[in-house]
Structure formats: C-alpha cells, structure tokens
C-alpha cells in the first residue's frame, strides 16, 4: 500500500475544502435562527417553514419541477433515438457530421445556446413561458443523454436484436422488448442527468423564460441581488439535496449495469472456456 503522506493528506483536505466548503457553509447557515446571514444565533428550521409558506417560492419550485420532468423525459426519448442512429446505422453519408452535431452543444457556451434559442422563439413567434423553457432544456440535455446511451449501445451485442427479428419481432418490437430493457440502466441514468441539469440551469432559462414562468435558479439569483436571506440558503440546501440524490442515483444505475454486464461476460467466458 502506498503511504498516506502528509503532503497527500494536505492536498486532499485543501482540494475538498475548496470544492465543498462553500456548500457546507450554505447548508449550515440555512439552519441559522438569526435573520442576519453572517451571524450565528442557534439552530432552527424556521426558514424552511417560512419557505413553505412563501407562495412565490412554491410557484417557482412547481415550475422548475415541471420543466425538469418534461424536458428530461423528452430529452431521454430523443437522445436515445439519436444514440441508436449514431451507433447502429453504420457508415452512412454524413455520419461524422451528424454525430458531431449532436455532441456540439456539449461544448457550446450556454450564453450562445440561450441567445440563439431566444432568437428562434422570437422568430417563430412563440410566447415565452414554460413551454419555451422545456424546449430549451430538452435541446441541451438530450446531448448528455445521447452520450450516456450511446456508450452503452456501443457494447450491446447486435446479435440479440437480430435474434429478436428472427423470432418474428418487427424492428420496433425488437427495440422495445430486447434492446430497451437491456440498456434501461443507461437510459435511466441519462434521464436523471438531464433532470438535474434542468433543475440547476440559470443561463438558458433566463434567456428563454417569460414573466409567467420563473424557475428556482432564476428566483434565487434575483433574490440574492437584493441581499442574501436565510430563506435563500434553505432553498439552496433543498436544491443541493435534490441534485445530489439525482447524481448519486444516476451513477448507481450506471455502476449496477456495469457490474451486471461484467458478471454476464464472466459467466459467458466460463461457459466457453
């Protein structure tokens, strides 16, 4: 075993502190009894209670939840379809261009994505509101879904689909009855990823939303400009909890699938050997 030197311990501490200290402070102060953000006056859950009585925050939370559910669901369907085409269709004309275009939004600055979507919505005369935010979130989160799903599909044995066709399935049935159940963990983890991305997006949402649909990140951002309140801390803590659960669930789903694939592979090897 490698020695756990003082240097290693120090850099690890600093690294984690850098990453998580701000969040820890935020979480701690969300339980502060005092009205003043920076003065500790004892433990209390008072701000959580006030949050629940604040209709504006509840509305924003409801908008955010709906946007996240709808956009991640649509993104999962579209992203899975795109991944299937990229992995399966073999070499067709313009394949590289097509797959490049799917992944490009991953590296596109959010401001650009947001601005171009805004111009599009204005151009086609779509009123800005929940619908436009859902569409905007769908477009950028579907690339993440398709990355996750296509990496699973790359190792999927196409003979399974052929066997399904051979036994009388239409191509769609083969996908629904064989491919989808097998790649389900990757699809679920793609959905969770899209869900969390939508939950914490500020930039694209502020470009594409209208007065009727304020999401939580927008709410927080504008509230903070008037000064940080303990209520905001409480709200942010809830968001952190949501995102953390989402990310952990996604990685667990992926890991479980990997473990199972590994087990299958080893069992097959034993049988062949």
């Amino acid at each position: 075993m490698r020695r756990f030197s003082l240097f290693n311990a120090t850099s690890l501490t600093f690294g984690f502190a850098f990453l998580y200290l701000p969040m820890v402070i935020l979480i701690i102060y969300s339980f502060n009894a005092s009205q003043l953000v920076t003065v500790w006056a004892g433990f209390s859950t008072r701000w959580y209670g006030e949050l629940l009585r604040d209709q504006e925050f509840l509305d924003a939370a409801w908008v955010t939840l709906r946007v996240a559910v709808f956009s991640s669901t649509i993104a999962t369907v579209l992203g899975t379809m795109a991944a299937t085409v990229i992995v399966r269709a073999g070499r067709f004309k313009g394949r590289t261009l097509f797959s490049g275009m799917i992944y490009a939004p991953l590296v596109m600055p959010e401001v650009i994505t947001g601005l171009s979507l805004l111009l599009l919505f204005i151009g086609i005369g779509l009123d800005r509101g929940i619908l436009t935010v859902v569409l905007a979130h769908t477009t950028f989160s579907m690339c993440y879904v398709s990355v996750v799903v296509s990496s699973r599909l790359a190792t999927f044995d196409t003979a399974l689909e052929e066997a399904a066709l051979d036994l009388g399935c239409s191509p769609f049935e083969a996908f629904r009855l064989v491919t989808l159940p097998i790649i389900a963990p990757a699809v679920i983890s793609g959905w969770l990823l899209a869900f969390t991305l939508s939950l914490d997006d500020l930039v694209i949402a502020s470009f594409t939303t209208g007065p009727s649909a304020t999401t939580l990140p927008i709410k927080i951002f504008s509230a903070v400009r008037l000064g940080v309140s303990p209520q905001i801390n409480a709200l942010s803590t809830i968001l952190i909890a949501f995102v953390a659960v989402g990310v952990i669930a996604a990685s667990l789903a992926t890991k479980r699938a990997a473990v199972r694939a590994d087990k299958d592979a080893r069992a097959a090897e034993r049988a062949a050997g």
Partner: protein
Amino acid sequence: MNQTVFAPWDDPDEKPLIQFRNVTKRFGDFTAIDDLTLDIYAQEFFALLGPSGCGKTTMMRMLAGFETPTEGNILLSGQDIAPIPPNKRAVNMMFQSYALFPHLSVRDNIAFGLRRESKDKAKIDERVEEMLRLTRLTKFAGRKPHQISGGQRQRVALARSLAKAPKLLLLDEPLGALDRKLREETQFELMDIQEKTGTTFVIVTHDQEEAMTVASRVAVMDEGKLIQVATPDVIYEAPNSVYVADFIGDVNIVEGRASQTGDKVDVAWAEGQPPIHATTQKRFDRDAQCYFAIRPEKVHISKERDDSRPNVLQGKVIDIAYLGNISTYHVRLADGTMMKAQSANTRRLANRGITWEDEVWLSFTDTAGVMLAR
C-alpha cells in the same frame, strides 16, 4: 422390408426447398460468396464445411434475411425471399454466439418467438414445456441465461429456435463451445429432433467429424465457392480434389505423372521407385500432372514384404502416433517421401512387432486410393 434411401437430390422430380441461384455477396470490394449455385431439399440435414472466413456464416445470414445477395437470388419453396424481411420468414436461426436474451428467463427466452405470433397462452405454455422436456431444461426454466452452464445455454438457444417449428432451421456452429462428450450427445439429440420434427436443418461447422456424423449431405467450401457437395461417404471416399481430400480426414497425397490404359493408371512419382498402380474412371493425358490420394487406414503395414497387393513400397518408421484403438505409423520411403499407414490395435502393445526405426513394407490395392487431377 422396403426401406427407401433418403436421397431427394438424385430424384429429378423432387423440388428443392432452398435454391441458391448464382448468388454473389460482396462486402465493399471483398467477395465473400462467389457465384454460388446450390439446392437443398426438404428434411435434409445439410452441413456447410470449410475453413474460417470462407463464407459459411454469410450464407446463413442471407437465408435468415440479415444480408441480401449482391447478385443472384435465393428461393425458398420456389419463391424469391429477397423482399421478405427476417421477421416474416419461416426460417429460424441459432446464432453462433447463442444470442440469448439476458434479461429473460430460460422459459421466456423459449416462449419469445411464440408470443410474437399467438395470444393463446395455454398453447404457448404447452409448447414451451414440450421444448423444455425435449432439451432437458425443465429444471432450469426459471433461471436467467447467466445462471446456467454453456451446454445448457446452447440447448436454450436450440429450443428457442425450434419452438416455432420453422420450415428451415439454421445452426451456426451450434456445438462449438461444448466439450467432446456433450457435443457427441447433442449431435445425436439433433438428429433425433430432426427425425421427430421433419425440419430441414442447415448446419455450419468447421469440425469435419461433426459434419460426417450428422449430415445427409456435406458442402465443402473455400473462399466463397463450393468445392464439392455430396453425401459424407462420397466426400470421404471419392473427394473431387486434393483440397477436399485434405480437408476431410487424414490423407497421403502423392504427386506424379499419369500414364493410362483403360481404367488403369500408372503414376510415376519418384526416380527409381516403381510406379503406383491405380484405378480410375477419369481420363488423364499421358504425362499429365496428377495426384494420388490414399487414406492411411487403407495402407497396409508389415515387417515382411507382402506381395498380395499390387503396390508395395519399402520404408522406415520415423514416428508412431498411438491413439488407443489405432496407431498411425509415419514411414519415410526410400526417396524421402513420408507416407502414413494406420492399423487397428487388435493386440496389446507388447505383442505388436513394429517400432521406431524398423524397416517396413507398405502395400495397398489398386482401388484403395483415388486419382485426382487437381
């Protein structure tokens, strides 16, 4: 008793079930199947035999509908199958990799095809139970594919492809992953199933013994072409080329020059050696290059010169391969040519006379070998 021999290929009135008509399949500029014409008849157990990469799987995939011929066409019961998608063909395939559905139990794997075409649950269950019994899998019906052994998986794959009682069943190296004993058992099981169900089987194998055991006819392939299509005994006893002779079983090939009178040929094969006397129906031009092929078990070996057979050659034992029931003697003839002779070990080891370095005599009749032009 009036037992008819099963030989529909000899009957001009018989309609073939499958017809390959000048089928060519190219992948890019690589030709995998090269202008191939072949008839396969109903209820045959047809074996495709050939080295890896010769196009066996490609032929299966064209029959199943996963590949379409680049040129030519394939008829099933007289109908061109090119426009029929795989899910509409009365053909089922057992995949080289088994391709079992990992998320379904053994029972659901077998029921999968049945559920696509019928809603009658009782009927499906009955058929699945029948398949489970036939392949002796009843005890494992509830398990997932990764919870059973390789041999059991192979039987699941077989049961799944048999369940729909297809007109034609394609087996792509179905027994490759099995050990010898299980493989032999399963070969007999397959033949039994074939007899009971009357299904036509096309089996791919690179194991020539397997092909000889199960097949009604064997097609030997090389580089996308059929070299010979015949019954196993004809393939073995009367190969049409050095390639086939060499591919199936052990053989001695002697190259030489022919001189023919009637159906007798003398093959001059080495300076200072008597010519080999052989019999043939073929015609060889004087001094044409020819090959004489003879199986080791048809070469008699003895310590004393035995003039009861027309061909007698002298040599020295270089090596002996003891296989239990038989031994193969590797003998170097006077000119350096190696020839193999086989004899059954009817006596215990200690009582047999021939050993390493012994001077021995090889002899064979003039009908023991075959004359080949190529």
